[in-house]
């Protein structure tokens, strides 16, 4: 039975969504300052206008629904799902004002892609956008990777009673330390230290590759944010091809892998538990699936003789594979090369890697290594049970921070989420095929959107059908929030209508 929805429920949801919206508005100060530094006056005004509009919406929401009550789990789920939608629309305003988005839908596509760390884009003439807009694009992925709610918790909301539930709603369900605000601070601390290191290293490499020093560190920051957040954006349409730099690709790959790891693993290693790297179920799962899918990639590329030598094959093949598996989406080949050169087997290898994806409670998407590990261990345990004497008690274990007992509930919930991911991958692919795209291409692009990867085989363009754009937006949103928040939002809306109906009947 679904509970009744009260007016107070709306107040709680409105108030916290308002606070998160205020956070988004304040975030826009960064690109505005960037535009001012580069003397991009119109761009700075556009960001000023967007900031004022976003803050106005945020403060209005918070004002009209102000409450002292704290969110419960249902509220937290609804707040997480709703605030991502509100953030998507308001963050799209600078895109529309820049004139580089053909419509509000296209702009929303790009902002959802940014927040969900996907990396697909419909922006027009990317090679000529302002530094302010480029900063905004990359900042979206950086913040989206850590979580908008996490950001708001750190700076605006604090340790309210429902704060941890808010984080769970956004898919960050690792309790690193007892205090929820401290969890958020720890996540940001880890991310900001890496931001400093990454920007410095990539900036120096950009200068070494011949870039202008005044821009090199901005590019360093962009590429770091894109890699660490497993986002996949880059300041130019050629993506990583623009730099023609092997060292930059290697460093970027390292940050992609680091970004795809669970924040709990980062925290364990930072606090001295280095052995965790070798024992963690997600690392073991990641290593096995990377080796398997890379073998498949090599087979496909060698079969077709795509690259002239092993070094070329490794540089292109491994980078693409790691980009796909960590659900980043950076690319050192052209999008259409996948279709024209790599062929169906190569695309299948990348599709499998994207579908599996990164670690739980990381910046990445996909099924997640944790779930793959749990399901695999669940199958192994079941087989062991069948092979053991009937009276024997067979219990499975997996290691994540500590040794955990494998329960049927854990296996079931992992399997349910994996099934839901498969479902959105298939639905997206079917919509693509209905519009006449080849099956391999449609699956590749759908899995890329649903797993928040962002590699494209050429389908994602401003000219693609509107329904397909909406489908990919929904896939990105659901995939990033791992379904439950979105389903709770839908359920809440339905329950609201039912409560309204009851009220009318009573009246």
């Amino acid at each position, binding site marked *: 039975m679904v509970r009744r929805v009260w007016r107070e429920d709306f107040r709680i949801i409105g108030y916290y969504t308002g606070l998160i919206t205020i956070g988004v508005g304040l975030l826009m100060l960064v690109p505005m300052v960037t535009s001012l530094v580069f003397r991009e006056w119109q761009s700075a005004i556009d960001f000023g206008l967007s900031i004022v509009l976003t803050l106005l919406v945020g403060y209005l929401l918070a004002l009209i629904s102000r409450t*002292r009550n704290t969110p419960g789990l249902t509220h937290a789920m609804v707040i997480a799902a709703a605030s991502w939608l509100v953030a998507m629309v308001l963050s799209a305003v600078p895109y529309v004002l820049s004139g580089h988005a053909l419509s509000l839908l296209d702009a929303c596509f790009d902002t959802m892609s940014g927040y969900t760390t996907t990396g697909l884009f419909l922006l027009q003439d990317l*090679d000529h956008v302002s530094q302010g807009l480029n900063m905004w694009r990359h900042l979206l992925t950086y913040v989206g990777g850590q979580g908008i709610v996490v950001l708001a918790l750190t700076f605006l909301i604090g340790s309210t009673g429902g704060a941890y539930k808010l984080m769970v709603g956004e898919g960050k369900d690792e309790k690193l330390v007892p205090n929820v605000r401290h969890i958020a601070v720890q996540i940001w601390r880890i991310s900001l230290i890496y931001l400093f290191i990454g920007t410095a290293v990539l900036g120096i490499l950009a200068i070494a590759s011949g870039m202008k020093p005044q821009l090199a560190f901005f590019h360093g920051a962009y590429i770091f944010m894109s890699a660490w957040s497993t986002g996949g954006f880059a300041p130019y349409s050629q993506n990583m091809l623009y730099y023609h730099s092997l060292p930059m690709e290697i460093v970027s790959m390292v940050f992609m892998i680091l970004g795809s790891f669970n924040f709990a693993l980062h925290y364990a290693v930072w606090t001295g538990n280095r052995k965790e790297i070798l024992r963690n179920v997600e690392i073991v799962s990641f290593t096995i699936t990377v080796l398997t899918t890379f073998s498949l990639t090599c087979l496909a590329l060698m079969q077709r003789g795509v690259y*002239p030598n092993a070094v070329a094959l490794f540089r292109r093949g491994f980078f693409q594979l790691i980009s796909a598996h960590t659900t980043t989406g950076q690319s050192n080949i052209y999008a259409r*090369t996948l279709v024209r050169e790599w062929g169906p087997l190569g695309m299948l290898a990348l599709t499998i890697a994207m579908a599996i994806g990164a670690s739980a409670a990381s910046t990445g998407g996909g099924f997640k290594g944790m779930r793959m590990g749990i399901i695999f261990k669940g199958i192994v345990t079941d087989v062991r049970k069948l092979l053991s004497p009937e009276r024997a008690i067979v219990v499975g274990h997996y290691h994540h921070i500590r040794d955990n007992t494998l329960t049927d509930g854990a296996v079931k919930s992992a399997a349910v989420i994996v099934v839901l991911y498969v479902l959105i991958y298939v639905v997206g692919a079917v919509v693509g095929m209905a519009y006449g795209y080849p099956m391999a291409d449609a699956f590749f692009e759908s899995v890329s959107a649903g797993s928040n990867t962002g590699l494209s085989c050429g389908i994602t363009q401003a000219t693609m059908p509107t329904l397909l754009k909406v489908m990919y937006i929904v896939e990105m949103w659901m995939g990033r929030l791992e379904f439950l928040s979105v389903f709770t939002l839908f359920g809440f809306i339905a329950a609201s209508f039912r409560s309204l109906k009851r009220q009318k009947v009573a009246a």
Partner: protein
Amino acid sequence: MKRRIAVYLGMTILLLALVPGHVLAQEPPLVTTTELVEHSASWDGKTVSFRGEVLEDVLARSDGTWLNLSDGNNSAMGVFVPRTVSMPVISWTEDYRTIGDTVVVTGVFHRACADHQGETDIHATSVVVVAQGSTKDNPIHPGRVVWLIVLGLALVVVMWFYYRKPGEDPSVRGDSQEPRIRR
């Protein structure tokens, strides 16, 4: 008869003189990024001509220079200019506030270049600047400035209401008649 042959010969020479020089010289075809990527196998190893705007960075390396040339909406190609090829002065490169020089590059297209670990690129044999870049007009829209002021004032009013002392604010409903929700 001799006179007729002389007339035909004269007309042939005249016609040949009217034909554009590059047709006779068999200049390499002008190609686009889309064409090269979509049909990379058929262009592999062939000499092509490519025209595009020079993007932001001219990347000088020890063995040559990399140019990224934009030839349309989200479409660009990497061109490697070896040290042995004379490089013209690039005065303008693309920026939010500038339009880069337009160059025409003639060179060999590589589907997966062996020298650059599988990169899809053009190795230039000649680079010519055909149009100088310029500054770009990014005018300030007065309408947006007006909106900024109007919405800014509205924001100040809303913030004033929001930051008033909680006791003065009737919208704080901690004592709601509905049940306090803690799940």
